[in-house]
């Protein structure tokens, strides 16, 4: 409901951001079909995303610019390309499992990334390829709103299909593949075939997401094969939590929203993302969705009298810890920037740094004591929350 009403509520810039959120959410869901449901860690999913994007751009340019299919159906081309490449790559990669599988996916993606700028006719070299959205079905697809609704329809349909896949026998078997591949083989199932099917379906929806992005950007560049794209889908999915169906989509939407909101203010967004990921991996392996789940279970089982203080403590601890961390990182970032170094060399004593609407002197104790105090207080609160929980268990 809310998603459908967004175009009326948001300015155009934010609408483009929500479009990207949708694409990222679909990509993360497709990724976690493979990594979460089938238990195969892929570090090269940018390959299928990029293939989908390029296939869609080529299809848009086909037939003298008229397009191979009407514009609303164009992402299907991306999906088909992702599926085709996914079957081939999956056949290779699923020969092995575990770590070797992860390395093969990484190698395939790096292979494409190294090859793409060389193949000018296919990937347009360094500058990439652009295309135009053609009017179709009485809509001109000129405005962001129409593109947003198109993306929304495709993403909702794909998410429904991905959810449905989990209910089919094939989806249940994929889950079994994660739990115990040997036993599955013993029961007479074709384990390699199952692996390839999970890989190919995941690649297909990744290609669809790539196609949607190409459709909204009207262009594709070999940067979509970048290792950073593969990395961010891994981070997003696990921050959201691959254990539940909506976790990865939630994580991707949250992360790309914050990325959009914060990227103007700070240069260290990627660092925060990395720290958040490692924090989730170490303290909350089920991700944000897992935290929400256990939080609501806590309320249901123990009643709000116990659960409310613990939750409040935990939230305060998280806020304090992140405030302290952000303070230190931003301070360091300004302290180490080139402008500041040049200024410090010119001036006799260290110039002050403006941060959060106040000037801080890098030499004074207060500047560093404040974030450290925030961190210590946060850690104490976190321990207190844990102890309360433990005492009443």
């Amino acid at each position, binding site marked *: 409901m809310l998603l459908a009403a967004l175009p009326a509520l948001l300015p155009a810039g934010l609408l483009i951001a929500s479009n990207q959120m949708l694409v990222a959410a679909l990509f993360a869901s497709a990724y976690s079909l493979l990594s979460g449901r089938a238990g195969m860690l892929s570090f090269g999913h940018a390959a299928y995303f990029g293939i989908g994007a390029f296939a869609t751009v080529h299809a848009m340019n086909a037939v003298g610019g008229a397009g191979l299919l009407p514009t609303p159906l164009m992402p299907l081309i991306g999906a088909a390309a992702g599926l085709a490449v996914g079957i081939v790559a999956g056949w290779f990669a699923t020969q092995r499992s575990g770590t*070797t599988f992860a390395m093969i996916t990484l190698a395939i993606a790096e292979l494409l990334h190294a090859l793409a700028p060389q193949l000018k006719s296919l990937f347009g070299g360094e500058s990439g390829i652009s295309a135009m959205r053609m009017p179709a079905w009485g809509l001109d697809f000129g405005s962001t709103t129409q593109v947003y609704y198109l993306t929304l329809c495709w993403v909702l349909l794909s998410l429904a299909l991905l959810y449905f896949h989990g209910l089919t026998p094939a989806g249940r078997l994929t889950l079994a593949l994660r739990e115990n591949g040997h036993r599955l083989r013993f029961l007479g199932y074709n384990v390699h075939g199952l692996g390839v099917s999970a890989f190919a379906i995941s690649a297909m929806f990744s290609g669809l997401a790539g196609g949607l992005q190409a459709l909204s950007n009207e262009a594709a560049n070999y940067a979509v094969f970048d290792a950073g794209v593969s990395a961010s889908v891994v981070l997003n999915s696990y921050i959201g939590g691959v254990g539940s169906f909506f976790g990865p989509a939630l994580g991707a939407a949250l992360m790309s929203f914050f990325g959009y909101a914060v990227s103007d203010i700070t240069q260290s967004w990627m660092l925060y993302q990395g720290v958040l990921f*490692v924090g989730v991996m170490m303290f909350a392996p089920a991700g944000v969705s897992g935290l929400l789940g256990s939080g609501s279970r806590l309320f249901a089982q123990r009643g709000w009298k116990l659960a409310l203080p613990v939750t409040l403590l935990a939230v305060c601890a998280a806020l304090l810890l992140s405030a302290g961390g952000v303070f230190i990182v931003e301070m360091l970032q300004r302290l180490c*920037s080139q402008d500041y170094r040049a200024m410090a060399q010119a001036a006799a004593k260290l110039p002050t740094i403006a941060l959060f609407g106040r000037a801080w002197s890098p030499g004074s104790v207060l500047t560093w004591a404040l974030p450290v105090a925030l961190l210590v207080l946060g850690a104490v609160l976190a321990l207190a929350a844990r102890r309360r929980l433990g005492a009443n268990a």
Partner: protein
Amino acid sequence: MDAFVFSLLNGLVYGLLLFMVSAGLTLVFGMMGVLNFAHASFYMLGAYFSFALQGLLGFGPAVVVATLLSGLVGVIVERFFLRRVHAHGHAHELLLTFGLSFIIAEAIKLFFGNFPVDYRIPASLDFTAFRIGAQSYPAYRVLMAVVALAMFGALYLLLTRTRIGIIVRAAIHKPRMAQALGHNVQLVFMGVFGVGAALAGLAGAVAGAFYTTNPNMALEVGVMVFVVVVVGGLGSLGGAMLASLLIGVVTSLAVSVDRSLADLLGFVGAQAWAENIGGLMTLKVSSLAATLPFMLMLLILLVRPRGLMGEKN
């Protein structure tokens, strides 16, 4: 001919460098069964530590201290991060090291900026070792090769000839049995992890001065090192050596090959047909040099999945 000898030598030196980084990775994999994504980050850390300390200590001591610091970071990673998530399984450990490599790269960008830093070989080491024909060969490359070979020799002797080596190999082979016999396997794990990280740091400190030192160097070398470890056989030191040299030489020689697949097909009379296809067919081998290691890896995984010298499947 001169050019051929030189690119062969360059390839060998690059291969030895790859070996310095992959030695620690393959040992840690053999021991803990987890491929450490952050391993190449120690290589980068070594280069940056050495760069930062160079002005303070001079080149030689800076390299030594950088090696020790990288090893220390490795010990911290093992003790406070990896060990905590060990219970959650290998996939979790792999993801954690992935996140750590991300953080290390971003932290480097925070402190040193997102561009190459001016880390160079000192003038005292910047001279010509020997000449073949008209071309001269830099002594620093020879030095890098000597460092790598000395390291391989020391590591080999340590593992095969000393009591510590026996315990380490036992802990790698049968950790539970070694533990039952009263050895502190956790300590061995931490030690091997630290030594592996220190070796990668040493490689970075030595090589960073010769090649470029930038925040992407971990990713560039890291991917290549994974290829080395998979091609050589996971957990095999000799295999890592062989694969490093193979990949170093192949990439170095390929850069100077000015032929394409279409030329090759010309031998069977299909050159015109291949040139019509274009794309991959007409690309020069030299421009494909960066992709050759990955192709080699896919080939190895298909025909010999356990790697060149790997023991088990």
